[in-house]
Structures are given as structure tokens and as C-alpha cells.
């Protein structure tokens, strides 16, 4: 997991709203810097980072919800939706890794046992040993694990497409522009003496 981008220039004695906008600008930049993760299905680590960035963005919006008002609420909903769809994607990645590790462990254990048996078996009996070893029994746990692995990969593909669709939907709706508007300083009316021209 990548560390949160630092937020420079915060002033503890300035009004909360000023600092909140500065923090939001950084959290937003952090999120959109990871956008390429949505273009490549195999960018697993970056998709995970994008999920964390969406979470940080959501928490920032929630932390200062009084400052960000109604538009902030809409952005919270979007950040939450992204976080959830990317969270489900991450869950599949964790499950895939778990099943793969188990399969590798079982495979290593069974080949180690076979090697020991071969070492202790007469040469003319090895062929029969190999025939048995290479034909796993019906209750071999690897059958279920391989089937589960196949399902998890299929679910991940579907989930990735869902995440991608949601990302493009929010892009079309102007998510980035809405966040930019929230993070920008409010327009201050020019005072009479300061205006030129």
C-alpha cells in the first residue's frame, strides 16, 4: 500500500475551510494519478492503491463535510461507490492468491512425498508408483481448489469490467471537475480599491 501523499502548506491557525480545500486537492490528485490502473486489467497492485486513494478521498470529504456542503455529499457517494467496487475486486485478488498458495503448497508436499517414495522403491516398481501418483484420487483436494480458482478468476474479470464502467461513468458525469471546484478557493469579490483597469 502506498503512503498517503503529504499535504504541504497547512496552516493550523487559518480557518478550517482553507485547509480542508488544500487537503482535498492533494487527495484528489492522488486518486487521479492512479487512473491508469483502470485501463489495464492486470494492474492489480495499482488497482489496490486506487482503492486506498478512493478511501482516503472519501474520508477527507467526510471529515470536512460541513465545509464541502451538498456537493461534497455527492462526491462522498461517488468515492464510496468506487471504494466498494474496487474493494470487491481486491477481495477476488486476495482469494485468488490464497487458493494459488494452497495449490502450490499441496503440490510441493505431494511431490516431496513422491520423491521420498521413489528413493525407497526398487527401480522396476517405480513405473507403477508413478502411474498411481500421476492419477490423483477423486477426493484429491486440488480438484475443488482448481475449480474455485477458475470461478474466482471469472468473477474478477466481471468485477474489473464493473469497476471500469463505474470509473468512466463518473468521468462522464464530471467527477474530476466537481472535485476541482470543491478544492478551489472560493471566488472572492474584488474590493473596490483593489480592482484595476
Amino acid at each position: 500500500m502506498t503512503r498517503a501523499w503529504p499535504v504541504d502548506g497547512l496552516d493550523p491557525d487559518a480557518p478550517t475551510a482553507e485547509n480542508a480545500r488544500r487537503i482535498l486537492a492533494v487527495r484528489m490528485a492522488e486518486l487521479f494519478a492512479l487512473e491508469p490502473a483502470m485501463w489495464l486489467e492486470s494492474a492489480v497492485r495499482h488497482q489496490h492503491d486506487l482503492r486506498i486513494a478512493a478511501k482516503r478521498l472519501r474520508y477527507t470529504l467526510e471529515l470536512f463535510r460541513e465545509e464541502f456542503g451538498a456537493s461534497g455529499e455527492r462526491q462522498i457517494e461517488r468515492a464510496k461507490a468506487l471504494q466498494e467496487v474496487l474493494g470487491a475486486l481486491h477481495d477476488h485478488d486476495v482469494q485468488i492468491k490464497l487458493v494459488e498458495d494452497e495449490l502450490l503448497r499441496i503440490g510441493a508436499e505431494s511431490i516431496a512425498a513422491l520423491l521420498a517414495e521413489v528413493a525407497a522403491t526398487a527401480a522396476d516398481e517405480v513405473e507403477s508408483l508413478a502411474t498411481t501418483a500421476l492419477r490423483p484420487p477423486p477426493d484429491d483436494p486440488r480438484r475443488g481448489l482448481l475449480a474455485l480458482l477458475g470461478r474466482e478468476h471469472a468473477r474478477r474479470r466481471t468485477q474489473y469490467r464493473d469497476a471500469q464502467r463505474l470509473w468512466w461513468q463518473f468521468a462522464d458525469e464530471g467527477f474530476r471537475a466537481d472535485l476541482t471546484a470543491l478544492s478551489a478557493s472560493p471566488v472572492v469579490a474584488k474590493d473596490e480599491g483593489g480592482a484595476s483597469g
Partner: protein
Amino acid sequence: MTEGDQTFRETMRALIGERWGVVWRTIPAAADPGDLEAVHDIRVASRRLRAAMDVATGAFPAGWYAPLHKTAKGITAALGEVRDRDVLIQHLTAELEQAPPHEKPGIALLIERVERQRAKARVVMAAYLRELTTGGVPAETVRRFGSAADPATPVEATAPKERGR
């Protein structure tokens, strides 16, 4: 400066206090191994606390703030091992129920392994939370961030409890 235009330091002191209060109130439920949501709730509460503390490091003296900030991070990490396995077991159990007979041995094997890992992780988590709540940290959070950090403060006097990832 108006009431609605507090300084960042004042706002963060109040927000961080509220979030410590939520963490302290949420922890006791995690003692029940059957309450899977309790661990999740503490994790979410600690993440929200971290989100507030992460951005307020420059607003308070590092001498006392940094150790509390580190503790907030530690709470999230301490519960992660248990929570991750709770989620896996829930998912795998659902898979086991749906699987045809020839697939069940493999899934059952995996559940057993994750359950063993979870049992170990729960022992570590329980020891961590016990030490955390019986040491001086709760009192220190009240001292630094006010009564909102006190677990005895009524919930309605602080921010509403939020759930989520």
C-alpha cells in the same frame, strides 16, 4: 472569526477527540469471537481516526501527538489479520455450501487452514487491545483531545457511528 469558521487546529482537536471516543467505545465488543462485525467496526473507526490524525500532524506538538498517531495506525494494523480472515472464511463457507461433492475436500481444507490462522491472530489481537485499553492511552487521548475522547461520553454527544469498508 465566527463560530462556524473555527481554526483548523480547533476543528481537528474536536474531530480527533470524537474519533478516539468511537474507537474506545467500539473495542469491548471485539472480545466476543462470534461478533465478526465488531472487529470490522473498530477497524473502520481506527481508519477514520487515522484519516483525521494524518492531516493534523502540523497542528499539534509532535512530542505527544506522534505517539498517539502511531497508536492509531497500530490499531488498524493489529485488527487487519483477524478481519481479513473473517472475510475469507465467510466467503469460503458460502463456496463450500454451493460446491459439488468432489470439490468440497479442497475448500474444506482451505477453510481449516484459514481458521487456524484466524485463531492465532485473535490471540495476538486480544492481547494488543487489552494492553491498549488498560494502559495510559485512553486517559492521554482525553487529556489531549477533550471529553469527546472519553468512552464514557454519551454517543449522542459525539459524531454518529458510521459503517463501511
